[in-house]
């Protein structure tokens, strides 16, 4: 065994003053000078070590030593402490010690006299550890001896802590040094305090005889709080017990310490400590006294006693229990009492207007209280914490609220709220709760809750489950017709999104009526119509109806999201965006993170169509945050991966797209639209990489899945045209033609500019000569009217490239300029690069004939051009270059002349032509 801190022989750390004093006293004793030392401190602060040190010193100097440790088990043993000092005393002294017949009045003087006699024979050190635990008789004797110590060469060294009266905490304390007349020369108080980190580090270094393992010292400081006894136990434990972490060892040691103290706590103090342990952080000390039964003990004194014994400390007007004390005092109660105390504390907290979270926190420990305020407080507390994801307080509060006796309707509401909280990281649990809500008869007038449950389930992409449950629900005869109709609508929506799923037994679900007025059903019908790609006007009308009541807070979210998706297909991107923004707001307001994620994913797609890659990227990233990564629904995983692939492709970063496409898919991902989307994205990626056959295998499967679901809309995912193009590249023109023709037919049926333009664009890319030119020109015309600016830019480029190949540089340049403007704003990586490349080629070809070749410019002029092209005003340029506006204007005039242009816009266009416009 290594020497511990304070083990005999080892120098004590951070006790220099005390050691010095003891040294002086013992030396004095050896020379016959009496002394009384009182070592005072909280349990575990090293009092015993100081005593041991003194004993050692005394022995070294040949001083006689007797010692005793008062112990909790001997508090009732008459003169127990004295009998430790004199174990083998016989005759009169032995009689006085052992015989209860001898009254204290004669025994105490006798014993005092005996010790003084010993002291007169030679210097004697009498050590009594934990004197506050001494039996009453020994206590009397000790104090009497202390008062008489100066009469012999006797040193009395006693360690104590604050006395905890056994009973009746209001009994007067018997002080050790009763009056001011006490001789300051002989009577000394030594105080022991916890170690600070430096002291602790020294102890640890000494223990290890060198540098301790890295990180151990801070760990120990945190675990032990500098309590030397705890530290010693931990260090020993680390040595002796493999694998037990320091914190556990410390807790164990601390627990034993606390246990020793608790064993002597009066009922009043115990009651207060319990109250403090339960509600110390919530209720002010004054209110705690109400909670505890303090009897006649003044609260302030009770609090002080707890503090002095290291059981609690004050924090403002709060009394906070020490962790170990909390644990121990609560563990010693029976569970019913604990729950009851929590319940009373919760009610007090509620009455005294404590924060909801505090009330809720107390309720967590209480049995059901059966009162309305409890459920309300728990719900409010959960609502306040719902931004903390997961099995955090919100979910716990709601689960607790569910244990209260509430009506079925109320229970359903609570379950939906809980499911919404759990959707983020325990979605399966949430889904099961929703199933329960959906399948339970909660009585009339509660349709809204059940619909909200269905909505929540769908928004999380749990379409398979939703289909199963909604099928049953929509066939329920007891529900109101309106609810049944909406449930059926949601069923068909779920059914529509089950891609590649297995066959299951289906219930008889009523069909959607052809015409609907209800906004929810309208939204769903709009999507179903749009996906089938038959009647754009009808889809648009229904979608608008579906989004019209957008401001209404209680509307379902999924129908609105799909209505917005329908509008994306009908080329009404602006309306779709507004609808999505509204839906997002509603979802955020209600704290439905999974709905926020779903809406953001759709908005990212929308931005992608508009060619706004940065915004799409941002939405995608936000969506990722909303969906907890380890708990995403497989469908969402696939969808996000697909979206990411397309985003990286737009940026021209094929490597990143490749790695996104290689994302591992969880089981079940393949039974969702997300998977279809991912296959399309992967097909596109492989097409871009020139792996046409592989691209085809993805695109074919994408097509099979879409067609299997009747999703014929050509704009939804243009897999067919891409496949046709891939066939063209592989030389299979017949196959390609067939697909192009099909695409054309579908586009005409759908009839939106985007649909028509896209089919023209692909056709143009897949053919040569006049056919290509005509198709591309049509595409440019159609797409100009379409909000899909990304595709428009593509069409412009392809037509320009066609013209360039045919030798019509003029036409190409004009188109490229348009295209360049679009790509400059929209940061479409691949396309911008191509545009620049083609511009460069054109430039090289026509250099001799074009007037505005890049002229020789002065350095200042070049800088001015650069800044102007960045969009700075003249004043800003002047500022930036620290020249006058006039000077800038002069330079600019020269520049315009040199380029042969008449203004900023033209300058920009020419520079774009020259590939000289920097990326924003």
């Amino acid at each position: 065994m290594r020497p511990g801190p304070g083990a005999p022989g080892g120098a004590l750390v951070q006790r220099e003053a005390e050691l010095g004093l003891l040294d002086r006293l013992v030396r004095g004793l050896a020379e016959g000078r009496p002394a009384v030392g009182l070592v005072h401190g909280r349990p575990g602060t090293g009092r015993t070590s100081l005593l041991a040190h003194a004993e050692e010193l005394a022995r070294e100097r040949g001083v006689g030593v007797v010692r005793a440790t008062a112990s909790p088990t001997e508090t009732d043993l008459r003169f127990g402490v004295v009998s430790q000092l004199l174990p083998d005393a016989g005759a009169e002294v032995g009689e006085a010690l052992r015989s209860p017949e001898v009254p204290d009045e004669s025994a105490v003087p006798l014993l005092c006299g005996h010790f003084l006699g010993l002291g007169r024979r030679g210097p004697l050190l009498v050590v009594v550890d934990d004197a506050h635990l001494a039996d009453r008789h020994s206590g009397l004797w000790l104090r009497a001896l202390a008062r008489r110590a100066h009469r012999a060469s006797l040193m009395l060294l006693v360690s104590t802590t604050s006395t905890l009266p056994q009973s009746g905490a209001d009994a007067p304390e018997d002080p050790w040094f009763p009056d001011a007349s006490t001789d300051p020369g002989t009577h000394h108080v030594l105080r022991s305090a916890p170690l600070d980190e430096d002291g602790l580090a020294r102890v640890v270094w000494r223990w290890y005889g060198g540098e301790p393992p890295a990180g151990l010292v801070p760990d120990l400081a945190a675990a032990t709080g500098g309590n030397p006894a705890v530290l010693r136990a931990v260090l020993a434990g680390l040595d002796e017990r493999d694998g037990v972490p320091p914190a556990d060892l410390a807790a164990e040691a601390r627990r034993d310490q606390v246990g020793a103290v608790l064993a002597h706590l009066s009922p009043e103090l115990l009651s207060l400590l319990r109250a403090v342990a339960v509600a110390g952080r919530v209720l002010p000390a004054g209110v705690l006294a109400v909670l505890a039964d303090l009897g006649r003990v003044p609260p302030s004194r009770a609090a002080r006693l707890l503090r002095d014994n290291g059981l609690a400390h004050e924090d403002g007007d709060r009394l906070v229990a020490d962790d170990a004390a909390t644990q121990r005092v609560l563990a010693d109660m029976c569970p019913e009492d604990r729950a009851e105390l929590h319940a009373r504390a919760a009610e007090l907290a509620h009455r005294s207007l404590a924060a909801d979270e505090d009330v809720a926190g107390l309720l967590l420990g209480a049995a059901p209280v059966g009162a309305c305020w409890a459920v309300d407080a728990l719900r409010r507390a959960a609502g306040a914490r719902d931004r903390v994801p997961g099995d955090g307080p919100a979910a716990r509060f709601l689960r607790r609220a569910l244990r209260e006796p509430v009506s079925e309707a109320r229970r359903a509401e609570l379950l939906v709220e809980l499911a919404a909280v759990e959707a983020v990281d325990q979605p399966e649990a949430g889904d099961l709760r929703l199933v329960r809500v959906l399948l339970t008869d909660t009585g009339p007038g509660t349709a809204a809750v059940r619909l909200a449950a269905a909505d929540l389930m769908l928004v999380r992409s749990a379409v398979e489950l939703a289909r199963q449950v909604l099928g049953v629900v929509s066939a329920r005869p007891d529900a109101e017709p309106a609810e049944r109709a909406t449930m059926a609508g949601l069923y068909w929506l779920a059914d529509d999104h089950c891609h590649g799923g297995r066959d299951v037994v289906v219930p008889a679900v009523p069909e959607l009526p052809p015409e609907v007025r209800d906004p929810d059903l309208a939204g769903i019908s709009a999507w179903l119509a749009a996906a089938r790609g038959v009647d754009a006007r009808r889809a648009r009308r229904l979608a608008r109806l579906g989004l019209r009541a957008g401001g209404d807070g209680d509307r379902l979210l999924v129908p609105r999201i799909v209505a917005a998706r329908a509008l994306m297909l009908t080329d009404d991107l602006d309306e779709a965006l507004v609808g999505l923004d509204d839906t997002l707001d509603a979802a955020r307001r209600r704290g439905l993170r999974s709905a926020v994620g779903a809406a953001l994913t759709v908005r990212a797609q929308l931005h992608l169509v508009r060619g706004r890659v940065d915004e799409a990227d941002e939405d995608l990233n936000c969506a990722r945050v909303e969906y907890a990564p380890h708990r995403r629904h497989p469908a969402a995983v696939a969808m996000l991966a697909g979206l990411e692939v397309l985003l990286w492709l737009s940026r021209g970063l094929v490597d990143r797209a490749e790695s996104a496409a290689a994302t591992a898919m969880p089981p079940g991902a393949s039974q969702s639209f997300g998977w279809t989307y991912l296959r399309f994205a992967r097909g596109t990626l492989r097409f871009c990489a020139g792996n046409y056959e592989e691209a085809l295998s993805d695109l074919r499967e994408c097509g099979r899945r879409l067609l299997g679901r009747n999703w014929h809309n050509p704009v939804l995912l243009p897999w067919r045209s891409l496949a046709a193009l891939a066939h063209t590249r592989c030389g299979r023109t017949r196959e390609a033609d067939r697909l192009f023709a099909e695409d054309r037919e579908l586009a005409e049926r759908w009839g939106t500019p985007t649909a028509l333009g896209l089919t023209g664009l692909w056709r143009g890319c897949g053919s040569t000569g006049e056919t290509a030119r005509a198709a591309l020109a049509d595409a440019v015309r159609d797409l100009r009217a379409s909000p899909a600016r990304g595709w428009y830019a593509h069409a412009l480029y392809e037509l320009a490239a066609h013209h360039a190949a045919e030798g019509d540089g003029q036409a190409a340049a004009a188109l490229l300029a348009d295209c360049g403007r679009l790509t400059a704003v929209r940061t479409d990586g691949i396309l911008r690069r191509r545009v620049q490349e083609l511009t460069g080629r054109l430039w090289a070809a026509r250099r001799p004939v074009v007037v505005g070749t890049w002229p020789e410019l002065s350095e200042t002029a070049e800088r001015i051009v650069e800044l102007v092209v960045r969009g700075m005003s003249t004043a800003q340029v002047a500022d930036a270059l620290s020249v006058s506006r006039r000077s800038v204007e002069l330079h600019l005039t020269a520049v315009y002349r040199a380029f042969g242009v008449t203004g900023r816009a033209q300058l920009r266009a020419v520079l774009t032509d020259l590939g000289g416009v920097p990326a924003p």
Partner: protein
Amino acid sequence: MTPFERESEVDLIADALRRAGAGAGSLVVVRGPMGIGRSALLHRALALATEAGGAVLRARAAPAERGFDHGVVRQLLEPVPRVDVEPHPSPLFAGEAPPTPHELFHRFRAEVRDLSRERPVLVAVDDVQWADPPSLACLAYLGRRLGPLRAVLLVSLLDGDRGAELPAAIDLVRAARAVLRPKPLSTAGARALLAGRRGGPVDEQHAREWRRHTGGIPLLLHALPSGPDDGDPGSWPVADLSEVVGRCLRLQPGRVGATADALAVLDSPADPDLVRRLAGLDEVDVAEAVRALRALGLLAPGADLAFTAPVLRRAVRGAMAAATREELELRAARALYGSGEVERAADHLVATTTPAGEWAANVLRAAATTAMVGGDAPSAVRYLRRALLDGSPDGPDRGRLLADLAAVELDHDLVSAVRHAHQALPLLPSAVERASALCLTPVVPALGGTPRLEEVRSVAAELGPADRLTGLEREMALKLEARLRLAGQEDPAQLADAHERFLALGPRPPLDSPGERELCAVLLHAGALTGRVEPGALAELGNRVLAREPAAASRAWATPGVLTTTLVAAESVGELGRWLDAATEDGLAHRRVLPLVAVRTRQALVALVTGRLVEARDLARRTIAEVDPALVEVISTCAVVLCAAAVELREPELARYALSRCPTRAENSRLASLTGLLRGSAAVAAGDLSVAVEHFADLGRHVDRIGWRNGVLFPWRSRLVTLHARLGNTELARGLNEEDLAEARRGGVAGPIGRALRQRGALVGGRAGITALKDAVDVLAPSTNRVELAKARALLGRRLREAGDDAATAHLREARHLALACGMTWLADRAGAAPGPRPGDGRRADLTSTERRVVELVIDGHRNKDIADRLGVGARAVEKHLTSAYRKLGVRGRSELAGAVPPPGADGWSRGSRAG
């Protein structure tokens, strides 16, 4: 003897004894978890003391004697172990009035003191945590007053026991001069211990395993059978251990036992929240109990709630009453269900046998769904079977469960699946549900015969004709109609009716819903069998249907499965092949065993008809060997593939094997025709020609009667032609061949026409023969039937060579390449006039897709420049690709490329053939 790895502890005790001998008594405490070897140390100390000539006082506290005041002290003192005095009652308790505690303490100490005057004394108390309180107080009193005595008080204390927490016990420890905490044994220690028990050496690996399973706790090392080196430690009997552990736990406060039980039911490491719910305790109680269990050594230290040694978990489980365990498993299931972990919840439910009501059925259903998503069909089946216990015995919920079970079993136990689907029928409340339960089973009669057609018929009748229905009802009606029509494929009248139905659907039949596609596929199938729908239409429509079917393996017995025959009959299997490949990927990803078999069967068929004979043979042989004989459709199809491959590859034993695997009794015409084909082919392969003639003739009569006329599917005439020709019945052969050609031309499929022409060429000879053969080659060149093309070319080549025509060489060389690609070495040998084999022949050239593309374009006669333009790459890149391709194919230049590349269709090459 010192116990293993306890040297330092024993030294410390010896030291204390020595010091006591010198007049400095002390208290030594040995404490630690259960089974760590405290008593062993005490025994060792007693031996040491006796050896040194000391006196010993010993006692062992027991829970049963706890209420017995001073029991331990009495044990120590009675009889007083003085050698020179007769045993007598201790003076301690002598006298009339009971002494005061103080008096008693003093007397006890005095007794020890007196004894120690003569010689050193060791007072040893084992399991002091169970000592009665007065004895404990006595010991504590003594412990604090040992200083001047020649005595050592040695006590052992079980950590974590409630007795060890009593103030007196804590006091006793505080008074100790030394506290010993023996550690678990190291691997070396465990090995030594084991070796001692076995009386022989133990190998390191085994010792390590042993140490891991016992945590190195001596009690466990002793309590378990030493076992052979390769025994599975997870199955060691733990009954004795359960006894010990159970006894210890019963002595603890209720919360400790409850927590231990909960932990034993849950997986390790357990979730604290779950433990609380199982044990029915709050956070505080569980924390306390866990602390106690850690101290007792049952739980490992650290943050996780895990048993110290795996056997301990089993020991605690073993100590539980069956009812408790059942109850806890149910509670665990409920709790896990509450936190959404349905599969774990279901695992707990499966461990119980008590019906647990509707919620349990819901959990199990949800778990089955999750398991299926993860591709774990066996677990799903287990869950659903358990769920049947929880539901009603004859309600609709049972019907749905049975249907769910059927749906899950489809992946690996078709027989049960079909049985359960039918059992569900009478329980399901609506016709739509009954229909959808029926429609779970394969569309293709995978088990042979159509089971319980009358049920399908009655549900279909309940729904009424599809045309008058909408929505789901129509969908179901269509699916049932498809099944009924497929079952009627042997009845000429029904076949005719099916054609009427097909025509009524119009030129572009609706294909939007699965039901519509299913019906269309079945009608096309009938059209293909009877030849009423021309092959172009079959192929076009068939592929259109296929393009709407996601490539899921589970669909292999549904629409795409039905389409297989049709597309094979129309010789248009390119899209089908790709679908099957994609479905294989899906099936592997989701571990769908039976659907994969169905896919593979179809792949074998496709391989056969596209001339990849070896691949077809291998797929079919593997499948037929593995599969359950109940899957008649798979077996018979594979057998047909094997027989056909046997004939073409000249491997007669294959045919015999196929026949041996095939059911002997044909339950329906399709099977009858297949068996006929099979037997005939087997006879051919075996060289038993006249028997073969009988079989094929029978087959012909049979299919003719039903009205099945497709030349690809039923090549009986051409087989007869060959046989008669070989038997010398030339006239008969010629007549049949005429018939065959006419029939093939009527059918309009290239393969049969080419085959008939080739046979005519073989039969007639001379110029007319050569013309017929040339025609055959022309017809076959664009077809997928590479086998026939190879044969036709080989024959044409030989004839031309006989006629002295220079074109012979080219044909023979081409025939040889084709034959090798198909795996028909015999034919390649026959066409042996061609130049010797070149590197790259007959094996799949390992070209990249771009190289392949470039090579194809070169073969098709494009210049490098064109190719570069088409591929959107530079001319330099094309040259690079070509050079690489030359090297891989082992050819010297462009001109040799055509010959070096395997023919299209043979191994995934996609180009249209230029040859012929």
